[in-house]
Structures are given as structure tokens and as C-alpha cells.
């Protein structure tokens, strides 16, 4: 562990990270790709006494098994694009992150913590019902991503814990992701929608998961819509009806990027595009 006295700490493995976190707790900032974390420092939002850099921790991996997928927390977005066998939603979300440098710097784990108008990977992972693997002083803990967000920039993670991996059990057969930015090839996310589906033999939805990003600080699942779909055959009528419920009871961001009305309308359009495309393919 070099540079220990300096405040820039480069632990070699997860155990070392956990022991540093136990000692330093909130006084240290964990940095992986840096794309979100470093701005917290340069914009003077926080002034950490130490940096715990994950650059040497071996968490850059994608493991695809028969019935599950595990992705290490420091895996860069670019690796998701190169990897074969990942769900479409995750691939599309990875491709939508703008520019060569950002794709190679930003990590899967970091994206989970990054608020709107970023955090597209988290939206896709949420629709894939991903589980987060956290390691801390108390051992390993699995937290579904759907139970990870407690509020704006508030997470279900303890001060001595670190996110080590993201797991997708029983990856859904069908998944998709769409997002809208102000201009074509880059820019902040105005709204993103990700949908995962498993159908039974009769073409009825056995499992439907719908996640929306960009509308609130962190992505959320549209549980009401999921219930509407479960056990049903998807029709235009059902999709249109469900679209109306996407933002039901949700306080949608209203800012310079887009009004809350626009974001709500956009979410419906993206949602319908995904599902119309799906049913048109039979």
C-alpha cells in the first residue's frame, strides 16, 4: 500500500479497502473511475481527508454463468460493450454513455451512486432486478438494487461497506433500454426507460420489470405497471394504459434541462417505443 501517509490510498484488495473504511469511515472518499467522485472534490462539495482509490483492487471482471451474471464494481463501461452474453438493456445503456474516454473511465459500481442526469447503467440494472454485493466489517451483504436507494444521494450502505459486485440472477430473456438526451450523440439524460420481460408458453408476461431513470435523483421501478403486465399478453391497449401509470405518484425533476411535464411525456414515449417494438416482433 503505497502513499499511505499522503492521503492517497491504493489498497491492493477488498480486505484492505474494508479495513481502511472501518478506520476512516466517512472521512475517506472511495474513487474508482473518478468521473463522478472527483467532481465532488473539484467543485468543493466535499473535502475528504483521504482518497481510497480502487485502481489496484481486482474488481474489473464480467462472469457469465449458466443462470447468473456477475460484474465487478470497477468494471469500466467499455468492457460491458465488449462482453458477449450480457442482456440487451445493459449493453444499450453502456453504449449510450457518451464518448470514448467516459466509457473507459466510468465504472459499473460508480454508476450506481451517480444521480440524475447520469446513472443510466443503474436504470438498466434496476430493470434486470440486479443485486448488489456489499462487503464490510460485518461480512458480505446482498441488497437488491430496488432496495438500495433511500432518498436523494442516500443509499442502503454502511460507512464501513464497499460495493464489490453487481449480480443478475436468472437474467430475463428480453430486455431493452432507451434514453433521450438533448442532442444526438451526447449530453445529460432527460429520461431513460428500461424494460425486462419473461414470457410464458402462451406469450403472457411471467415477469415484467420496468425502471425509469432521469426523472428522479435515482432510478425507480414502476411497480404498478409491472403488476398490470404480469400474467397478461401485451397489447397496444395494455401498453398505452400502462404508460399512463409510469410516473404515478412520483415527483418528477423540473429544471433547466427539461420540465417535469416534458420528462413525464418523454418517459411514456420511450416506454411505448420499447414495447411496441417488442410486440411487433411477435
Amino acid at each position, binding site marked *: 500500500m503505497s502513499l499511505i501517509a499522503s*492521503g492517497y490510498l491504493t489498497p491492493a484488495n477488498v480486505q484492505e479497502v474494508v479495513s481502511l473504511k472501518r478506520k476512516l469511515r466517512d472521512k475517506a472518499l472511495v474513487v474508482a*473511475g473518478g468521473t463522478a467522485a*472527483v467532481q465532488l472534490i473539484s467543485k468543493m462539495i466535499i473535502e475528504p481527508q*483521504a*482518497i481510497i482509490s480502487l485502481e489496484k483492487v481486482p474488481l474489473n471482471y464480467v462472469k457469465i454463468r449458466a443462470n447468473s451474471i456477475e460484474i465487478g464494481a470497477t468494471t469500466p463501461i467499455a468492457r460491458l460493450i465488449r462482453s458477449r452474453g450480457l442482456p440487451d438493456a445493459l449493453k444499450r445503456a453502456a453504449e449510450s454513455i457518451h464518448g*470514448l474516454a*467516459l466509457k*473507459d473511465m466510468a465504472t459499473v459500481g460508480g454508476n450506481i451512486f451517480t444521480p440524475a442526469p447520469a446513472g443510466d447503467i443503474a436504470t438498466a440494472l434496476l430493470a434486470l432486478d440486479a443485486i448488489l454485493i456489499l462487503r464490510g466489517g460485518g461480512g458480505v451483504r446482498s441488497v437488491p438494487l430496488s432496495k438500495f436507494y433511500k432518498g436523494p444521494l442516500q443509499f442502503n450502505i454502511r460507512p464501513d461497506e464497499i460495493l464489490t459486485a453487481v449480480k443478475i440472477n436468472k437474467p430475463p430473456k428480453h430486455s431493452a433500454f432507451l434514453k433521450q438526451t438533448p442532442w444526438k*450523440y451526447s449530453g445529460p439524460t432527460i429520461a431513460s426507460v428500461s424494460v425486462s420481460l419473461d414470457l410464458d408458453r402462451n406469450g403472457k408476461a411471467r415477469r415484467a420489470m420496468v425502471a425509469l431513470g432521469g426523472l428522479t435523483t435515482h432510478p425507480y421501478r414502476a411497480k404498478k405497471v409491472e403488476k398490470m403486465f404480469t400474467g397478461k399478453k401485451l397489447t397496444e391497449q395494455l401498453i398505452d394504459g400502462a404508460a399512463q401509470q409510469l410516473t404515478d405518484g412520483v415527483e418528477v425533476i423540473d429544471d433547466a434541462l427539461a420540465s417535469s411535464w416534458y420528462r413525464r411525456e418523454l418517459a411514456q414515449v420511450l416506454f411505448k417505443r420499447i414495447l411496441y417494438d417488442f410486440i411487433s416482433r411477435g
Partner: protein
Amino acid sequence: MRIRFKLDGQDVEVDVKHTDTLLKVLKDKIGVGSVNFGCGEGSCGACMVLINGRLRYSCLTLAGYVDGKEVTTVAGLARDGELSEIQKAFLENDAAQCGYCTPGMILTAKVLLEKNPTPSDEELFDALAGNLCRCTGYIPIINAIKSVAKR
């Protein structure tokens, strides 16, 4: 703390704080001219560098990260006084006006062509999405990169 790294082939030693960004160290401590401050949040690409050959926004990279590594800016691309192919292409295609975004554009083009020597338009636009230019309208830049891809 003191870090040591190679900057465009030369050894550099500099005292930094754990919270200093690489951009801040390159500009304000070392005085590097081939890296520019534009936004400080990874949107414009004017500050891009290669770290061990990988494209990085220096404004989003902490200085501690480059300890023991090799940092390359556009000033380090020429070999024995001869411009690299991509630099020549930018020169021939008038792919710069004010020049402020040019270092980042050239580094992005270089990395793109290393990974994908014949990018489609779509791949080219997507790769350049992390670099902003306010003068050229991008067309000469795209022409320059395409001219190298064709060779």
C-alpha cells in the same frame, strides 16, 4: 505528497495534494500548455491526456493516480520532429480554428483509430461525443480522422 511520472517521455517529480486533479497539477504546478481547462466536469474534452495509453479526462483524474505511470499529451505524439499521422491529417484538413479543443480531439482520434481503424460515421460521432468544438462545426475534424482511416 510527491509523485513521479513520465510526461511526454520526460521524468517529472511534483508535490501534490491527495485531492488535486491531474489537470490542476499539469496546468498550475507544471505549466503544461498542451492540456486545456474547459469545463472541469468531463464534458468538453479539452483536458484529455493518455495515461499508459488510455484516454482520460485529466479534470476527472486525481494526480495520485499517475504516480509511476506515463502521461502523454498531444505534445508528445511527434517522433523525432515528425508529426504523427493524425496530427498531419488535422493540419491538412484545417481541422482546427481556435485550437483549444484540438489536443483532446487528436488524442481521441488516435485512441479510436487504434481500437477501430475503419470506424463508421456512427462510431466516429459516438467516439467524439466527449469532445466539444465551438468553432469548426466538426466537419473538418471528421474529415481529418476519416482521411487517416482510409490510408
